[in-house]
């Protein structure tokens, strides 16, 4: 026993850190702050450590070479003992890390913890969020498959929109003229050296600030932050109604961190590793690239923005958003902390959450994309062919063969890019249908050059049958008024 103490003393005599560590460990926290709301920061740190450890373990096998990366991932998945589990833990750990960091940020925002004197803690936190997203994106590239390949293409295309120096930036990003070996090596360096190095530095700074300034007190409505009095009030609070971090407050952090690690493990074991999907061979054009979960909202945004606004928004919005996040503690460094007294903050947060959630949800089924196999995989429902004339059936064939199904739903199947056509005849007259097919318009290409007159006639006569039995097809009112009754627009399909 005394031997152990002797060894300890030997080190302490040289290092002289026992005091500092002790101070850090037992620093007082406000009694009410020792709440389950305050566990996300430590959980983020736990997952970060998990990611570093599993990342290093994966690096024992992974080959960061464009020619070999994909094979080495297959080797990890299928040959290396429990390699699949480590890949899965690293992949799911990434998801959990982004999620926990985001939740932590929301919690800090809602509880007003970014206000005086913790402005710098918040700013460092903003950089930690960006670095975490950077890890998520570069990690997706490490899984060097089709999605990674085309994801890089998308990254390069976005970069190319920067005025004047866009071309240079593309070459820098790719490390060469095309997506190839140098690209993966660049991103490997980013993913395992540069960004983790920055993360370790910023996390240390973040922690140091938390220790120096103390954990945020639980906000009470009416307890207003003032630069002149806050430090004194906080000091009184922690000394009158505080308790040492260890052991009184730390147990909740420990419980939650353990729960998070078990959750990551459970997801990893149950769902398994992410991919890799197809090989990163650009000549396989039968692919539908999609980003990972946390970038789906961006995927949706890029499809839904008006084309003319895309470049300005892509280039300016990030500057504004990041700038605003950094300036936030200076814009509202004082005042109420409680979310009960900050309705605009709560509404803004909800709005952002709902928007991101909606975009993400939309991106899971991407209604803006043509379904590439719609024309060959989704037949025209039989009920739309029963009792039709040969011309109308020929039209259905044209409808199918000319890939109309890739964008148009019929009977609940097909693409969602254009409107569903189950009752198109009730909204467009014969003439309007012909014009729409030949000239296109809205989001539809013009088919005039690729359909001969016979095909157009057949197609339109089929489209005119698409209306519910109890609803007549649309008619041109002026024609109906002028022409004798029997000359009304042709072959109303339904009888």
């Amino acid at each position, binding site marked *: 026993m005394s031997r152990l103490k002797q060894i300890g003393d030997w080190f302490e005599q040289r290092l002289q850190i026992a005091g500092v560590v002790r101070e850090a460990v037992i620093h007082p926290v406000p009694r009410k702050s020792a709440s389950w709301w305050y566990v996300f920061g430590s959980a983020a740190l736990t997952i970060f450590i998990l990611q570093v450890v599993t990342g290093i373990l994966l690096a024992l096998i992974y080959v960061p070479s464009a020619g070999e990366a994909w094979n080495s991932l297959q080797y990890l998945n299928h040959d290396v003992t429990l390699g699949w589990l480590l890949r899965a833990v690293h992949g799911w750990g990434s998801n959990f890390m982004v999620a926990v960091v985001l939740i932590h940020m929301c919690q800090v925002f809602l509880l007003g913890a970014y206000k005086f004197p913790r402005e710098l803690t918040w700013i460092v936190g903003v950089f930690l969020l960006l670095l975490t997203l950077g890890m998520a994106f570069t990690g997706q590239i490490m899984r060097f498959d089709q999605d990674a390949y085309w994801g890089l*293409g998308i990254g390069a295309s976005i970069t190319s929109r920067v005025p004047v120096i866009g071309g240079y930036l593309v070459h820098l990003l790719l490390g060469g003229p095309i997506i*190839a070996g140098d690209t993966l090596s660049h991103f490997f360096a980013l993913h395992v050296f540069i960004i983790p190095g920055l993360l370790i530095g910023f996390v240390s700074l973040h922690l140091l600030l938390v220790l120096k300034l103390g954990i945020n007190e639980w906000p009470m409505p009416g307890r207003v932050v003032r630069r002149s009095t806050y430090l004194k009030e906080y000091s009184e609070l922690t000394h009158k109604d505080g308790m040492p971090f260890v052991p009184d407050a730390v147990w909740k952090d420990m419980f939650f961190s353990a729960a998070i690690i078990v959750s990551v493990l459970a997801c990893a074991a149950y769902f398994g590793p992410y991919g890799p999907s197809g090989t990163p061979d650009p*000549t396989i054009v039968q692919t539908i690239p999609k980003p990972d979960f946390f970038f789906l909202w961006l995927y949706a945004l890029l499809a839904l923005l008006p084309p003319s606004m895309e470049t300005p928004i892509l280039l300016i919005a990030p500057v504004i958003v990041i700038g605003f996040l950094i300036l936030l503690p200076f814009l509202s460094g004082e005042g109420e902390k409680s979310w009960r007294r900050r309705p605009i903050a709560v509404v803004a947060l909800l709005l952002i959450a709902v928007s991101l959630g909606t975009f993400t949800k939309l991106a899971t089924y991407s209604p803006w994309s043509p379904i590439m196999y719609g024309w060959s995989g989704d037949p025209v429902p039989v009920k739309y062919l029963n009792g039709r004339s040969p011309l109308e059936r020929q039209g259905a064939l044209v409808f199918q063969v000319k890939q109309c199904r890739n964008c148009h739903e019929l009977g609940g199947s097909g693409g969602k890019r254009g409107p569903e056509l189950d009752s198109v005849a009730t909204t467009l007259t014969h003439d309007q249908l012909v014009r729409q097919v030949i000239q296109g318009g809205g989001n539809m*290409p013009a088919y005039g050059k690729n359909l001969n007159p016979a095909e157009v006639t057949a197609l339109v006569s089929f489209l005119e049958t698409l209306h519910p039995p109890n609803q007549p097809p649309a008619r041109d009112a002026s024609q109906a008024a002028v022409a004798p009754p029997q000359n009304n627009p042709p072959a109303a399909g339904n009888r």
Partner: protein
Amino acid sequence: MSVATGPAEKPESKPQLSRRDLFAKIGLVLNGAAVLLLATPVVGYLLSPILRAERGQYKRWITLGELDEFPEGQTRLAKFRSPISNAWDGETDNIPCWVRRLDGEKFQVFAINCAHLGCPVRWFPQSGLFMCPCHGGVYYQDGSRASGPPERGLFEYPYKVEGGHLMIEAGQLPTLSTSASLRKGSGGCQG
């Protein structure tokens, strides 16, 4: 550094630069110069992808295939090996493109990459359209924009016909600012 510290006449040498201060400043300058000396090649190394592009090293004329491989009036997928390639690039050096032969020696060679965000467009001969699976960009058979988010038509490679072979000038990923036909070709390009 605990050697010879002799602050003999310290009190009144206020404006004067002491020997030690001078050396400290020279030391700073020396280190600054050393860093600059080191940083210059480092920056050059990091900017290598740009510098090589500036020297025009990325673009070459490449043979896509014999003319017979491309029937008139059809659009076909062709593949070529990127002119800048390394042994460790694997399959990423195999670049696809769409070749449309109008008639005789008149061609259009389109990049696979959508002009919106670079996803691979697919050709549908029945409807004469290129469709992009990512955000729904659609192009006509001549590469012009039909609908969706792209702001322009498909990127085209400059081409020429030599000795019965179709050749294109290619080498870099086409984007809005590194398009395949941006740079005036190195000699005799007609695209």
